[in-house]
């Protein structure tokens, strides 16, 4: 094991939330422009975070904070493991651990919105986790292994449908319409996040940013090139493209009911990834001739 790489991975993990904050700012700006208005400055999420850190301390119970911290540590761990090149499957399980802790934190307060949000969050997990597993399987088929280290394979050419399924997952994970079911702002007032304030809300936000960073890192897996600079530029462009598609869908659709969301994401996600995997297998076995 290359220990220098572990150190680099730690540094990247520490910088990641700032990068995602900028991405979130860009997201809000582009959304604003799509709605024919000016929008906040790109650094707005950082200002939000700083303001939250400066508020007075307020919480409902300590268990909530402990579970929220566990959620954030698991998210950080998942990203660190990804950058350090771990097996995608252990990252998958750490991600589900993070989601479980987030939900438990929401369950630990007796607020109707929090409990509703927690149940919806679980249904969301039921919707996207199998799809993520199948996306990782697609990566396995093309790359030959479950390692998350970057390869030279141009996965997006092999796995376009899987990429589309990943966009679906991204929509769910980033809580974008039509799948922003758990944190359905106008429906259940913030859902699982409702009972956090100040520092602790900032903590949960940073946890969300780490999860988003991981999702974007998975998206960046889809581009590969032997030349380091081209690979880096290509990954960046792919991430922005995915972000743009997500923002576009967010602004053009209305929220689905949670049952509908689970059904749509599961059926379309599993179908797309399964068909893509089948085609890739057929090409690899020589059943379908491909240049």
């Amino acid at each position, binding site marked *: 094991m290359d220990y220098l790489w572990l150190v680099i991975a730690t540094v990247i993990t520490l910088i990641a939330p700032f990068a995602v904050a900028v991405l979130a700012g860009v997201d809000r700006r582009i959304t*604003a422009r799509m709605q024919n*208005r000016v*929008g*906040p400055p790109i650094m707005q999420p950082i200002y*939000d975070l*700083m303001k939250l850190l*400066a*508020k007075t301390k*307020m919480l409902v119970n300590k268990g909530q904070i402990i579970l929220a911290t566990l959620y954030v540590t698991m998210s950080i761990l998942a990203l660190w493991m990804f950058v350090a090149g771990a097996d995608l499957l252990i990252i998958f399980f750490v991600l589900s651990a993070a989601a479980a802790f987030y939900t438990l934190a929401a369950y630990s307060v007796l607020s109707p919105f929090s409990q509703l949000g927690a149940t919806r969050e679980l249904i969301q997990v039921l919707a996207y986790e199998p799809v993520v597993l199948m996306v990782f399987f697609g990566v396995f088929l093309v790359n030959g292994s479950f390692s998350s280290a970057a390869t030279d394979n141009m996965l997006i050419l092999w796995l376009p449908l899987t990429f589309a399924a990943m966009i679906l997952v991204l929509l769910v994970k980033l809580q974008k319409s039509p799948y922003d079911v758990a944190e359905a702002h106008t429906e259940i007032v913030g859902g699982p996040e409702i009972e956090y304030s100040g520092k602790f809300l900032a903590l949960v936000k940073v946890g969300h940013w780490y999860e988003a960073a991981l999702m974007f890192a998975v998206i960046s897996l889809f581009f590969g090139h032997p030349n380091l600079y081209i690979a880096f530029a290509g990954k960046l462009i792919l991430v922005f493209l995915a972000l743009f598609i997500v923002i576009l869908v967010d602004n053009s659709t209305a929220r689905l009911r949670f049952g509908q969301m689970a059904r749509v994401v599961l059926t379309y996600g599993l179908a797309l990834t399964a068909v893509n995997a089948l085609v890739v297998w057929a090409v690899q076995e020589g059943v379908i001739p491909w240049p």
Partner: protein
Amino acid sequence: MALKSLIKSPWILHFDTGSCNGCDIEIFATLTPLYDVERFGILNRGNPKHADVLVLTGPVTQKTRSRLLNLYEMMPGPKLVMAVGDCACSGAPFVNAYNTMGGVDTVLPVDIYVPGCAARPEAVIDGVVKALEKLGKLAAGEPAPPAHMREAGDIPLEVYDPEAAAAKAKAATAAAKPAAAKGAKDAPKEEV
């Protein structure tokens, strides 16, 4: 430091304490893309634990008073209170009604008053700008106008006394009678 960061990202919680919803509609209009308050970093959070500015309409009816206090307590500091509309500022036509407290500042210390019936979105935005200015002054340590509270009933009441009013009216007609009688003598007699 806390106040300075609040300037860049004031999140609001809107609560209607019994208004006719006229000001509420104007506030929702302010939050639409047309007026675009998000460029100030303002977000409408539905939940006091996330909010910094409490935007209130309505003259605080007796029933909403306890809920309002609950919400105010649930907001972590530092926080501002903004009273939007005449009813919230001073109670307007409902100031002496038996079921209202007569304005937000009888219950909570108000930082910004935005008058109007209904307060226009431009006025609301102006109010927000003044709030941010106040925060800037507080953050810099300069003197700034304080939050204001008053006793319910500070505004002098004119209670309608029917006997006094009748006496006043009688005196007025009595004063007008000689003048009318004088004028009537010169008038030609009506044909019977």
